């Protein structure tokens, strides 16, 4: 699968980056390609381009707050989970994305 993901937690200090790392690591190990954008206390980093999004099969939002510039994902298949879920069980999150892609 080609995956784009956004992670964002309320304080933006820790869980945003833990979730990003978990998704990145787990997806790569399973042979998927993935790009993860973080929306934390430092603002948006590793911002996804229109092309990244267009190319992806599915988008994963691991967020506890609203995703900024959500309109970029209009018409996209989206799996939304809490940050906690992505940190705790990234495999399950990827499985949900797999189901969505079909």
């Amino acid at each position, binding site marked *: 699968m080609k995956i784009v993901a956004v992670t964002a937690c*309320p304080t933006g200090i*820790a869980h945003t980056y*833990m979730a990003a*790392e978990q998704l990145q690591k787990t997806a790569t190990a399973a042979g998927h390609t993935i790009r993860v954008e973080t929306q934390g206390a430092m603002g948006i980093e590793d911002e996804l381009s229109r092309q990244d999004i267009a190319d992806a099969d599915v988008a994963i939002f691991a967020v506890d707050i609203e995703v900024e510039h959500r309109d970029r994902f209009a018409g996209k298949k989206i799996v939304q989970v809490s940050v906690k879920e992505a940190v705790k069980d990234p495999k399950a999150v990827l499985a949900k994305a797999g189901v969505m892609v079909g």
Partner: protein
Amino acid sequence: MRTEYRFKCPLVNGLHARPASMLAEAARAFTSAIVLRKTCGTAADLRSVLSLVGLDVKFNDECVVEIEGDDAAACRVALVDLIEHRLAQEDEAAAREVQSAAVASVLLPASLERLHPRVVGGVGVSPGVGHGDGVRISGLTLTPEQVAARARSPVEELAKVRVATAALRDELSRRAISSTGIERELLGAHASIATDPALLGEVERAIDGGATAVQAVASAASQFCGRLGKATSAYIRDRVVDVQDVAMQLLTRLGGKQCASCGVTLSGPSVVLAELLTPSQLLGLDRTHLRGLVLGQQGATSHTVILARSMGVPAIIDAAVSEVPAGRPIIVDGGRGVALVEPSEAVIHWYERASRVDAQRAERLSPLVRGIAATTDGIPLEVGCNASGPDEVSRAMQAGADGVGLLRTELLFLDRETPPSEGEQFDVYAQVVRAAGGKPVIIRTLDIGGDKPAKYMDLPREENPFLGQRGFRLYAAYESLVRDQLRAILRASALGPVKVMAPMVSIPAEAASFRLMVDQAKASLAREGTAFDPATQVGVMVEVPGLALVMDQLCRHVDFVSIGTNDLAQYTFAVDRGNAAVAPLHDVRNPAFLRLLRLIVVGARGAGCWVGVCGEMGGDAANVPLMLGLQVNEVSGAPGAAGTLKLAVRSADGASCRALLDHACNCEGSADVLSLLSSGSWRARTVEPVTAPDFIEVDVDAGSKEDAIRHAVERLYVLGRTDQPDEVERAVWAREVTYSTGLGYGFAIPHCSASAVSCASLVVLKLANPIEWGSTDGQPVRIVLLLTVPASDQGGTHLKVLAKLSRKLMHEDFRASLMDAARPGDVYAVLAQALGL
């Protein structure tokens, strides 16, 4: 489309977590981008509860909601409905439900709260912590035998009273001579109450009416107290306790030892419980055993409280004293304003550790509080103390004060028959100068007026004492009294650096005439060949707004000025801050007041004049950025405040403070000024490391999550990264309740973003025994990483380090090397390598 909605915050307690989550909830139904902006410019995403709370929106603050997106119109309708009609009501309803549980929890840190101490709340008036058994001291009550007693002849009863009063007066005067400072003043004052003709007149009338000497003294005292207690001035009300005190001592002499309220002896560490404690009751207690005071109706400005503070005895007032049992152990926490009744072992340990932590911090920070503190870009700010006597000055010097910014002399003059002699004053000033150990002492001449009457001055009753004959305005009429004081002050200048300052000066001509008075006093000393420093500087208080407009003229006559912000604000806003109905208008952070201060400082510095700030505003560490922005030379605060003030100075950037002041002067209200201050934009861009080996502790013995968090926060406190550990602990818990920071694998990363933290920091604790943390994998925690970031940090290198750490923690090899690292140095090495420190 784009739309907006302006409103004033309808929530009495401000936009706190509960209403913020209602707003965020409502916003989530829409796709538009929604921002809540305060009129001063700071803004937050309406869907982020934490950033909404971080905005610190207060009641009636002006705000605007900016909505941009496809469904902006519908979103606006929903939000207007919520804000205008439901927000305040629903918040109140929810508040009522949790109210009963909230009282104690707002006072105490979570780690103390979880120990379920029995708390009696009050108002802290003398800081510090004391632990001892409760000893109750009650007020004026007669034994049943005394009440039933029949009088002999009026002549005999009257003779008894005369003998008792004469003996008491002699004893008090004798004790006054052999004591010093406030204690001496007080004993003198009591000697004069004991022979007060009005009081004795009441006693005589009662005896003529058939009362015994004992009954007559009790009834006269209670009548007197009743009258004083009705006075509008709190200062006068607080004198009730002095009259009671003298009456009690008379009763002891008249009635021997059967008087129930006298002769309390402390046999071990004790906390005294009293509705009202008289100053001589306090002085009569064995200080080696006295650990603290829990008081009821005692006034905050009463002599008892002033004494307790100068003796360094922790004290709270406004406590429900009857709920505190006597004979049981009690901890008094003067800083937090609570008494803890029958504390458990765990609570006692908590306080013991807090006191060890305080000592560690003081030792570690002592090099930072020595010498004059400067901002990171080199702007110095002297930190003085406000004091009334040598004891307070000694404590302030120990705490790192650079001098005495204001020595008040009124206590020497009040509550006595005759003014203090030049020699008596010299003794006190000399003690103060010696206590200051070579640092400058600004002695303010008598600041007295209709609100603080002195018998021998025979001041007229005035309609408006604060606008009448006060301070300097009385000096012409009391020439010899002023001369004696100036001579005493000048004589003290031979012993160390002294400056002399006049209060309540309204026009430059008064400053010129004060200087003349000082010159005359110098001339008289010179003629006698008495030693003094001829270069003694002369200054005035700036507390009348009119002076601000003529600083150039004023400064021709003085060497320095000191801004008395309390009275200056009172006269600027035409408000008596003792009057609760209008007190909120007395607001030193109001931009009008800041502009006035700027006018004063710019004027004074233009004329080469030294400027100090001796009002409460200068002593509050939260205002340090404003003081640095104004570029005053000195601030002066409470005797113990120097350390905190100096740390604030050292963490600041002078240029940013000046920018902040400009910005603050253009805000529309003090709420915006407060949010500027808490934004932390004034802090220096720090080069302090995020972590270091002494941020890391191993084999930490923590019994619970609360303990571990407290322990880590205390580390920050010892390291000087925060001066408000309770605040940081609260912020960490506010994050912790959203969901546990236990991330599994035996790791927890409690964290917060808080204005009480000076720079981004990482504290690591390796626990001796694993503890439950509510982690996602159900495993107990062995390693705690506390991440704290100042609220103002918006993307510095520190945040990058913390983000990197968070990512690294997802990797098993990194976790394993942290688990394996045995000593702090080893842990640091692992972190340094992985994070590129």
